[in-house]
C-alpha cells in the first residue's frame, strides 16, 4: 500500500448518487459544477472534505457532493463548522449558505466566524430572494422588491454581503456569479487562503427573481459592467477603455476614461488607474461599496490578507497549557483541601 502515485479523480468522483432537486435552469446547477470542477483541479480528497450548510435552496448543496456533508439548521452552519474544525482541524470545510440563511437568520454567526477567522470557505449564494419559502424579499433584495410579503414593494435598505464580511473582520473577500467561467479560479483562491474565505456568488433564481443580475451578467453588458480584479494589475474594464481611479479630493473612487497608447495598449498610468493590491483593506472597503450603475460590479478576489487562524490560535494555546501536565483523573478528583476519615478501609485514594 505504499504506492505514492496521486489518485486522479474526475468530476464523477465528486457527484453523489442523489438526484439533484433544484428547479430546472437554477443558477445552483452551474455553481455545483464549478465546485466539483474546483475539487478535481485542487486534487482534494472527498474523505477529508466536509460541506456544511444551513437551510434554503442553496443549503441542499451538500447532498449532491460525494464528500462528507452536514445539512444543519437555518443560519447556524458557521457554528457547526466551528465545532467540526476544532474537533478535527485536518478537515477541509466548505460552508454553503444563502442571503437569507447567512445574512438574516444567521447574520450573527457569519459575523463571528469571520471575526474569529476559522479556516474554511464560505460560499454565500446571493439571489436576493427567499426561494425555498416561495419568493419573499430577502435582506439583500433591492428597495421596492415586490414579493408575497411586500405586495407594494419592500422598503428595507439592502445589506451588502461583502461589505458586511469585511466590516466583521474578514481577511478574504471575493465575488463571482453562478455562470462565470472564473468561478473555479475564485474558489481556488479562497481555498488557498488560510482563514475564513468569504465568497459572494450572485445566483439567478429563475422562478422568483429571474435575471436579477442581467445588468452585468448578460453577454452584451459584461465587458462594460464587470470589473475583474487581479492582484498587481490595473483596475480596467470595458476592454481597457475605462478604469477605476482614486478621487483624492473626495476620498472615494471614480471611473476614468482610458485612452490607448500608440501600440494599442491602454495608457492606464496616464489616467491614474489604481493597481489592485489584495492586501489594501481601505481600497477593499471602497470596492465592495461601489454603487452599481455608476460603477461596474467588482468581481474576483477583492481582499486577501491572511492572519493566524482561530483553530491554530485556540488549539495552539490549549497545547501550550497542556504541555508538561499529566491527565491523572484520580489526582484531579482528590485536588484541593481534603481530609481523611480513618477506618479499617482507608479507601483506595488515601495518600494520593
Amino acid at each position: 500500500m505504499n504506492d505514492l502515485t496521486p489518485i486522479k479523480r474526475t468530476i464523477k468522483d465528486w457527484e453523489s448518487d442523489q438526484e439533484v432537486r433544484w428547479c430546472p435552469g437554477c443558477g445552483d446547477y452551474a455553481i455545483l459544477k464549478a465546485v466539483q470542477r474546483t475539487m478535481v483541479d485542487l486534487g482534494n480528497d472527498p474523505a477529508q472534505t466536509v460541506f456544511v450548510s444551513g437551510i434554503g435552496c442553496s443549503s441542499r448543496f451538500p447532498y449532491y457532493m460525494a464528500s462528507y456533508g452536514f445539512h444543519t439548521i437555518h443560519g447556524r452552519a458557521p457554528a457547526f463548522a466551528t465545532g467540526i474544525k476544532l474537533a478535527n482541524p485536518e478537515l477541509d470545510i466548505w460552508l454553503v449558505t444563502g442571503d437569507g440563511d447567512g445574512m438574516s437568520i444567521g447574520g450573527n454567526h457569519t459575523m463571528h466566524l469571520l471575526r474569529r477567522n476559522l479556516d474554511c470557505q464560505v460560499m454565500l449564494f446571493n439571489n436576493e430572494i427567499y426561494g425555498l419559502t416561495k419568493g419573499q424579499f430577502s435582506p439583500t433584495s433591492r428597495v421596492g422588491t415586490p414579493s408575497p410579503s411586500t405586495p407594494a414593494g419592500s422598503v428595507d435598505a439592502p445589506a451588502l454581503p461583502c461589505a458586511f464580511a469585511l466590516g466583521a473582520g474578514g481577511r478574504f473577500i471575493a465575488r463571482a456569479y453562478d455562470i462565470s467561467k472564473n468561478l473555479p479560479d475564485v474558489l481556488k483562491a479562497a481555498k488557498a487562503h488560510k482563514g475564513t474565505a468569504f465568497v459572494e456568488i450572485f445566483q439567478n433564481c429563475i422562478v422568483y427573481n429571474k435575471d436579477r443580475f442581467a445588468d452585468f451578467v448578460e453577454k452584451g453588458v459584461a465587458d462594460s459592467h464587470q470589473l475583474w480584479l487581479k492582484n498587481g494589475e490595473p483596475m480596467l474594464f470595458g476592454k481597457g477603455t475605462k478604469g477605476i481611479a482614486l478621487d483624492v479630493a473626495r476620498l472615494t473612487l471614480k471611473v476614468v476614461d482610458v485612452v490607448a497608447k500608440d501600440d494599442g495598449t491602454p495608457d492606464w498610468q496616464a489616467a491614474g488607474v489604481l493597481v489592485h493590491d489584495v492586501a489594501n483593506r481601505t481600497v477593499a472597503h471602497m470596492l465592495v461599496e461601489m454603487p452599481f450603475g455608476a460603477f461596474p460590479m467588482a468581481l474576483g478576489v477583492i481582499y486577501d490578507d491572511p492572519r493566524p487562524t482561530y483553530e491554530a490560535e485556540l488549539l495552539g494555546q490549549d497545547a501550550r497549557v497542556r504541555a508538561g501536565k499529566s491527565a491523572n483523573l484520580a489526582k484531579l478528583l482528590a485536588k484541593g483541601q481534603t481530609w481523611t476519615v480513618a477506618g479499617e478501609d482507608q479507601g483506595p485514594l488515601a495518600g494520593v
Partner: protein
Amino acid sequence: MATIDAEGGARDLNPAQVGGQPEAVVVRFAGDSGDGMQLTGGQFTLSTALAGNDLATFPDFPAEIRAPQGTLFGVSAFQINFGSTEITTAGDAPDVLVAMNPAALKVNVGALKPGGLIIADSGEFNKRNLEKAKYAANPLEDGSLAKWTLLAFDISALTLLAVKPFGLGNKEALRCKNMWTLGLALWMFDRDRQPLIDWLHSKFAKHPVLAEANVAALNAGHAYGETAEIGGQIRQQHVQPVPAAAGLYRTVTGAEAISLGLVAGAQLAGLKMFFGGYPITPASAILHYLAKLKEFDVTTFQAEDEIAAICSAIGASYAGQLGVTSSSGPGIALKGEAMGLAVMTELPLVIVNSQRGGPSTGLPTKTEQSDLYQAVYGRNGDTPMPVIAARSASDCFDCAIEAVRIATQFMTPVMLLTDGYIANAAEPWLVPDPATYAPFPASFLEEANGAEGQVLPYKRDPQGVRPWIKPGTPGLMHRIGGIEKAIDTGDLDYSPGVHQAQTDARKAKVDGVAKATPPQDVAMGPTSGKLAVVGWGSTYGPIHQAVRRSLARGLDVAHIHVRHIWPLPANLGDLLKGYEKILVPEMNTGQFKTVLRDQYLVDAQPLTKVSGQPFTIAEIEAAIGTYFDGVPGDAGGSEVPADTTQLPSIEAINP
C-alpha cells in the same frame, strides 16, 4: 447553650442535643454584597469539613453584581447546616445569624429561630444605613429583637484596631471585617484556625501585608471570643464529628462535580471532550471550571450565543468528540431547535441545564425545578430525548457519567438537570476512585456496513442505535441532516411510510434506554404501603429528612427519588402502584406529578413551592403529616397545623 427567650425563661438554643453538645447547628452569614459573605461562608464550610462534621450549604446572593451599598436588595447571605449526624439540607431556621449591617439584619432576622443568636456589627448601624434598610429606629436599641439573643458590638472599629499596625487605608482595613467575624465564628465552634491562615497566605502571596492584616483580623475575632468581653452571653460549643465511611473527603459544589463527571465520562468513553458554552447564571461555573482542565483533552469554546454553543458541540460530536453544552432555562429554550437536529441526526450530546426561576429572565440567582416540561417535551415534533436529574452536589458526578454513557451508547442527546441550589451549594464528598467505574468505550465505523461496500449511516443495531462515523474516514463519505431520511441509507425521504417508521424507531430507541438503566429503588422506608413521597433533583435533602423524621414517629411512609426522568425506570409504575397515596414535592407548579399521572394513571398529588428557596424539612413533614393527621395508623383527613418554625422566603420580607 442556655439563652434567654422572649418570655425571659432559660431555653436551649438548639433542641437537638447529644450529651450536652448540639447535634446540628445552622449558621447564616449575611451582609452587603461587597462584604465578602460568600467567601466567609466558603471558608467556614471548609473549616467545618476539616472538623469532620457533615454539612450542607446554601449561598443566596443578589442578581446584581454590585447593588448599591447598604440596601435591602444588595444583601448577600450564606447559610450552612453542620452536625454530627447526616446532613442533607442547608437547614430550616438558622440558630445563629451574623448580620454585618442593618439591611442584612432586616432581610434575615425573620428566618432566625426564636431564641436564636444575632451577632451584629453595631458600627454599621448608623443613621444612613438604618435609613437605607428602612428602619425607623435602631433595632439594636428599641427592643424589637427581644425574642432573640442579641450580641452587638462594633466589629468595624475592632477590625480597624486589629489591623492598625499594617498601615492600610480605611477602606482596605474594613475589608478585613469578614475575617474578624470568621475568627469569632471559628472560636464559637472550636475550630482550628491554621488551614485558614495557610489559605490567606497563599491567596495574598503577592501582597504579604494584606495576608498579615487578614490573619490579624482573624486572630482578633478569635481572641475576642476567648476573652470575657462577650459577658457570658455566648459560649463555645463543640459539634462532634459525624461517623462517616472511611476514606478521603473534600468539599464539592454541583458545578465542580458535573465538570469532573463529564471529564470522567469522556475518559470512560475514550473520547476527547468539546464544551460549547455561553455565559449565563448559574451555569457559567461549569464553563469556568472546564476551561482550566485542558490537560484532560478538553476544548472549551465560548460561543457568540446559546445557539452557537450547542451547534458547535453538535459539530464536534459529528467529528467524533464528545460534544457538551450547558446553560440555564432561557438559554436552553434557545437551544431547542438544535437539540431537535441532534435527535434527528442521532448524534451524541450532553446538555446540562442548571435550572433557575422562570419564566423568561425570572429569578437568575434563585433555584427552581420548573424546566422539567421543557426538558422532556420542549421541542418541535416527536423528539424523544433522555433526561436525568442530579439530587445533590456529589450526585452530579455520577449523573454526568451516566449522561455521557447514555449519549454515546445510544447516539442521542441527553439532558442533565441540576439547579441553582445544587450548582452553588457545597457538601462533603467521599472522593471516588475512577478505576471502580466500568468503561464504556465509544466505537466508530471504520468500514462500509452495507452490501457491496454501501455505506449505511442509519443502519440500526438491535437496540436501534446507528453507527457513529467520523468525517475523514476513507470510503465512508455520506450526508446527514435535519430532513427526514430513508431507512438505513439516510438519503432524503419524507414519504409517509418512512416518516412513520423513523419516528417509531427514534421513540423505540429512547424508550429502550430504560432497559439499560438501573431499576428504581426506594431511598428510605417500606417498598409498599400507605404513602410514597416521590421526588427528583435537589429536593432530595428535605424529602429525605422529612421522611426520616416521619418514620421515626411511626408513620408508614417511603421516599422514592427518581434520577431517570425520561425514560422513567422500567419498574417505577409497578412500584408506585404498591402505595395507597403518592405525594410529589417539587419546586414548580407540579410538573413531575403530571408526568407520573400521564405515564401510570396514578393519583400523584403535588406539593409545590416556587419562592426561589429550597423546601424546608418542616414543610414536607407537615405535608406528610396530613395523610396521617400526624398519628401513626390514622387515615388522615383533617389539616395538620402549619409548622411555625418554617423559614420564610427571603423574597417575602425583601420584596
